[in-house]
């Protein structure tokens, strides 16, 4: 299978000549002419997401998925727009095809030992407790990349 993402050509599976339907979700891309490695990343995350959703739907006895609710932390290393873009490609030919992707972006949350409290960081480039302005040593949220729930018929 070959997918074109903007200016990128991405090949799945061993044989790039085969124009097989994209039924082998879970296969990681084996080659790409894409110079934006980042988009590659979202595509491989999207493939994992589709597989997880399809498995969960099957377990719940559903033949179709209407929507996915996903939570992404500010430091998860995943760009929501790029994930949305890759998601449609990854979902093609699966029971997740056409499903809505609802993304909840969550900020970095730290636990401050001095304040004995949790607080959200306004800016992940500055790990400073927003209450007492001391360095924030413990992150309790911000790397999430979770499938929270599905909507099925």
């Amino acid at each position: 299978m070959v997918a074109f993402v903007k200016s990128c050509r991405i090949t799945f599976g061993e044989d790039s000549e085969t124009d097989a339907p994209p039924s082998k979700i879970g296969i990681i891309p084996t080659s790409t002419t894409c110079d934006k490695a980042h988009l590659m990343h979202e595509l491989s995350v999207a493939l994992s997401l589709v597989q997880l959703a399809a498995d969960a739907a099957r377990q719940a006895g559903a033949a179709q998925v209407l929507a996915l609710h996903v939570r992404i932390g500010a430091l998860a290393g995943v760009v929501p727009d790029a994930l949305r873009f890759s998601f449609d490609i990854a979902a093609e030919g699966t029971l997740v095809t056409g499903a809505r992707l609802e993304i909840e972006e969550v900020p970095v949350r730290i636990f401050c030992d001095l304040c004995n409290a949790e607080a959200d960081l306004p800016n992940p480039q500055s790990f400073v407790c927003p209450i007492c302005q001391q360095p924030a040593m413990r992150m309790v949220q911000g790397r999430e990349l979770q499938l929270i729930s599905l909507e099925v018929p």
Partner: protein
Amino acid sequence: MSESPRLVEVRQNVLSKNDQLALELRQRFDQAGVRVINLLSSPGAGKTRLLEETLRQLSTQHRVAALVGDLATDNDARRLARSGAAVRQIETGGLCHLEADLVLHHLEGWNLADFDFLFIENVGNLVCPTSYDLGEHGRVVLMAVTEGEDKPLKYPGTFQWANMVLLSKLDMAEVAEFDADSAHANIAAVHPGVPVIATSARTGVGMAEWLAWVEDL
């Protein structure tokens, strides 16, 4: 047939398969008594050069091995093999990061108990690899003095992920007009308390401190 959609709770990490595999890898590493270091940097920051020197010096007293991830070519593995350490290349074929199953697959045929330390040189990339646990004990980010002092601010997630930051190519600091204070401040801003060692594989500066950290891991 119900009219409104039904909600199915999942609450799983999207990369939970990798997480599970990484957990199993870590158990295997622990049983074999091998400490594993995941080494990350942008392309050209000097991972291979530093690793070359690290393997050479460590192998005088320890049994060391390395897995080297690259999009293509086995040049790095051939370079590292000169150190005498056991080295294997992982060609990812375009994948921007290493995953636990790639590591698992490339360990086949190795007896892990034969090693004290295993270094995993990840694909040159400061974003994607941090999402994938490889079962490592140490997470090291390399930042060359030629890269600009604000790298940590551009990649806060990566520097937050690391439990050791190595400044590399210190021998080029003057030419690059490297501002060490600014670099340290930026690292501390995104990850307060993370240890930082300034190194040069060429001159040997910082190598003893770095190797001591590895031995204590």
